[in-house]
């Protein structure tokens, strides 16, 4: 027995333990469930340490690599690496009621920074570019392209109207919103079809593992 074979067998047994949940909740499933929580917690902790905390904080601050401090942050001295390290630390201030409020500073930097970061690119990629993609020429109705473009434009306007909350959906607005919901439902259907595909693929993948990689009968 080598490590690979033991590993594959272990993986196969765990796979079967999870599937036993389909019959009913049982100790094998509970074991697998707690195992995966433990393994992945350990995994994340280690990966984050090696790939992030170590190169950006620990190494620059504690090891003072000669001339090489600046590897990640483009010309930053070791003491600059202290700031994010401190920000990370003050998250834990919440365990000390007296200074607990300090932990909000770190959240402020993170949430504020990423909120600001998101605004303009989202406006660009999801609004401007999609306006450009959505305003299609519909005048050439004697061609097939004209009609399909019209379909796209009407569907887009209808969907936008459906998500308009400020007025009751009556009259023209109601009509457009109604067209919108038709498009949304067809879209959801397509999405459902694809999701079925996706989930079935996952099952097939696991079966392929059991039959091909483990038992080697196909």
């Amino acid at each position, binding site marked *: 027995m080598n490590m690979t074979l033991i590993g594959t067998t272990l993986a196969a047994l765990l796979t079967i333990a999870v599937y036993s949940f389909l019959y009913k909740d049982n100790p094998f499933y509970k074991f697998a469930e707690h195992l995966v929580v433990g393994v992945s917690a350990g995994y994340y902790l280690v990966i984050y340490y090696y790939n992030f905390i170590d190169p950006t904080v620990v190494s620059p601050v504690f090891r003072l690599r000669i001339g090489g401090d600046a590897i990640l942050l483009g010309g930053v001295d070791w003491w600059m690496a202290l700031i994010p390290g401190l920000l990370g630390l003050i998250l834990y201030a919440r365990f000390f009621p007296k200074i607990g409020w300090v932990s909000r500073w770190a959240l402020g930097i993170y949430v504020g920074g990423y909120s600001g970061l998101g605004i303009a690119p989202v406006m660009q990629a999801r609004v401007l570019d999609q306006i450009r993609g959505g305003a299609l020429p519909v005048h050439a109705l004697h061609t097939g392209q004209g009609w399909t473009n019209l379909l796209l434009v009407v569907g887009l306007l209808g969907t936008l109207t459906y998500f308009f909350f400020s007025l009751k959906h009556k009259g023209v607005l109601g009509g457009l919103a109604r067209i919108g919901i038709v498009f*949304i439902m067809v879209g959801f259907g397509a999405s459902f079809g694809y999701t079925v595909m996706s989930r079935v693929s996952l099952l097939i993948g696991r079966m392929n593992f059991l039959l091909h990689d483990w038992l080697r009968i196909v």
Partner: protein
Amino acid sequence: MRREIPLAITFLAGMFMLVDFFVPHHRVSAAGEELKQWGTIVIAASILLGIGNLIRVHSKKIARRQSGWGFSLVCLSVMAVMLWFGMWPGAKLGPNPLVGSIAQGSYFNWMYLNMDVPLQGTMFSLLAFFIASAAYRAFRLRSPEASLLLISAIVVMLGRVPLGQLLTKGLPEKATLPWLTEAIMTYPNMAAFRGILMGAALGVMAMGLRIILGIERSYLGGEK
């Protein structure tokens, strides 16, 4: 002050990142990079908060011998083993360490590939079964809208697999299931998703602005 300082920090960080998008000056982008780096370090450091909670809840269970405490023991000990295999510094000596390394072939990597990967993949694949039972009990032609959803779902499900493609093989191209599937994806689906994408984008931006301006502050924990 407890309230104002975090709000001021949020405002400054948010405005800076917003301005950064429009200003190509290299010093601005460098500072922006730095700020982003800080943000991600905060998140990376936060993982211990969660692990701490996990340890607290499970060790309480074990200490009180609550039902299922044995499973809690499994959870905590496996985590400890992962940390030992992954980070034990004394074992880093030698050319190809099995402990204290995360490279391919190490114990850490072995546990990841043979426990984490199959378990998560299998839990995900349970969905194939649940989809089938949901399809049987919940997908009803209750309304015209629901019917549309079902019909387009069935067309896509057939149009994307070889067997479905065989069903309409002899027909003219525009009546075949693959063509219909492509048509659904390219027209109604795209129009609807584009609309939803734009709407959701506005929601995201409005919320972002509210956060920067300090109107939305629930994430900081209540009002006091």
